[in-house]
């Protein structure tokens, strides 16, 4: 056994301290946190605890992995040994076993990851080309009558769209440009279909749609040729590809993205036949009403004319004349008496006026006429103490003498 120096300065560790130190090194290294690691699953174990344990390996190395129950329940893919996957997580150390391992928080089949990278690369490129610019978006007509559809002639997507249009807008004319929606020929066929609809049919709107599927199934809608054809279409394009959660690059280039084919058909029939019917009924009501108003106005006008006619009618004049005649006749019989009456009345009037002017009338009201030597006294200055006066009252005269001149 080799002799150790008593004064060896090398640090001494407990296993625990050393392991803890290593753990801190690993967990403190940002390069090892939030990593994607590719490999193949082996030794997959899913005990009743709900956690998932497996080893990720490739041709020359292996890595222990654990995914806790909280993340494991969110997994959408079924795992099995031999499956090529990408695992995301943080590197750490399981101290009790002295084992470094990957604490996984999500994972996905390997192909998906590669496709997703490709998706992001294409998206960035086409975005830089301005294909997704909001300013490029065309307005979707409210009530398009001529609808182009680019989809598989045999898929459920077409059936769903036609049913939706039949229910909401049966006035529409649909032109289907049939295409394969997956596989190698799909992108070219879709590109050609979009171009042909634009060139030959020129519908009001185009629906580009496909039912749900894996990312590989939907891949044609990420193809650059398809995306560019969508962007170049003069006719507004509504995409309805896959399910709600699926986004393809064609969606980004489209003028409107619908979550599903059915929703795309709904967006292409935002005004339904029910609404058209209501609008029509409303117009018919106004039409009828306008005629009612018109008739009333004409009626009033006619009434005005009629009363005017009545006023100026010769019949009215005849009637007036007849009435006058009647009156004249009636009066003719009594003319003599009338004249006498009139004369009498006039005489009475004259008499009344005379009476009113007569000084005697004044006496009737209690006044007296005073005379001195037959001359009417109208002023105090005309009389002196002791003068003899004559006083006339309503019913007679008497003599009087002035006593004192007040």
């Amino acid at each position: 056994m080799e002799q150790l120096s008593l004064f060896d300065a090398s640090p001494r560790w407990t296993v625990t301290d050393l392991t803890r130190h290593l753990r801190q090194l690993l967990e403190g290294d940002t390069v090892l946190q939030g990593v994607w690691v590719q490999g193949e699953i082996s030794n997959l174990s899913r005990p009743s605890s709900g956690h998932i344990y497996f080893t990720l390996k490739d041709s020359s190395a292996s890595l222990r992995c654990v995914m806790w129950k909280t993340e494991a329940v969110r997994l959408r893919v079924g795992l099995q040994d031999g499956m090529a996957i990408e695992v995301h997580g943080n590197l750490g150390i399981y101290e009790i076993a002295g084992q470094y391992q990957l604490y996984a928080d999500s994972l996905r089949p390997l192909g998906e990851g590669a496709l997703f990278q490709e998706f992001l690369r294409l998206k960035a490129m086409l975005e830089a080309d301005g294909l997704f610019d909001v300013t490029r978006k065309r307005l979707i007509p409210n009530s398009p009558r001529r609808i182009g559809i680019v989809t598989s002639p045999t898929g459920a997507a077409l059936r769903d769209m036609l049913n939706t249009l039949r229910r909401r807008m049966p006035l529409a004319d649909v032109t289907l440009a049939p295409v394969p929606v997956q596989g190698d020929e799909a992108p070219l066929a879709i590109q050609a279909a979009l171009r042909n609809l634009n060139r030959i049919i020129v519908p009001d709107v185009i629906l580009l749609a496909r039912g749900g599927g894996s990312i590989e199934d939907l891949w044609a809608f990420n193809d650059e040729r398809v995306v560019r054809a969508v962007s170049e279409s003069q006719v507004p394009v509504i995409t309805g590809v896959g399910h709600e959660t699926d986004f393809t690059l064609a969606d980004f280039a489209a003028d409107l993205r619908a979550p599903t084919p059915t929703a795309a058909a709904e967006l292409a029939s935002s005004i339904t036949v029910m609404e058209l019917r209501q609008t029509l009924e409303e117009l018919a009501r106004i039409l009828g009403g306008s005629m009612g108003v018109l008739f009333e106005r004409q009626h009033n006008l006619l009434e005005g004319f009629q009363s005017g006619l009545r006023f100026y009618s010769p019949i009215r004049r005849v009637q007036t004349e007849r009435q006058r005649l009647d009156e004249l006749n009636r009066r003719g019989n009594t003319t003599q008496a009338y004249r006498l009456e009139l004369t009498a009345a006039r005489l009475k009037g004259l008499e009344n006026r005379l009476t009113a002017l007569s000084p005697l009338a004044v006496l009737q009201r209690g006044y007296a006429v005073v005379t001195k030597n037959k001359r009417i006294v109208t002023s105090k200055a005309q009389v002196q103490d002791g003068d003899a006066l004559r006083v006339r009252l309503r019913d007679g005269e008497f003599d009087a003498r002035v006593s004192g001149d007040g």
Partner: protein
Amino acid sequence: MAKNEPKPIDGLTYEEAFAELETIVAALETGDRPLEESMTLFERGQALTKRCAELLDKAELKVQVLVGESLEDFKENP
């Protein structure tokens, strides 16, 4: 709207009939037309309303398929 030569109503599409109906209603609403012209407009408006309602009632989605450069009727799989 070609007022002088009104199109035969049977040949109008829904859009054409509806657009003319809207014009007529607007004209009648202002009420400044002579009675006889108004009556003519009203009668045409009624015929247009009937045409539109018929088109809505009878409407059946027309589906064609683009084959090469030409259109063919589309037979849906049952």
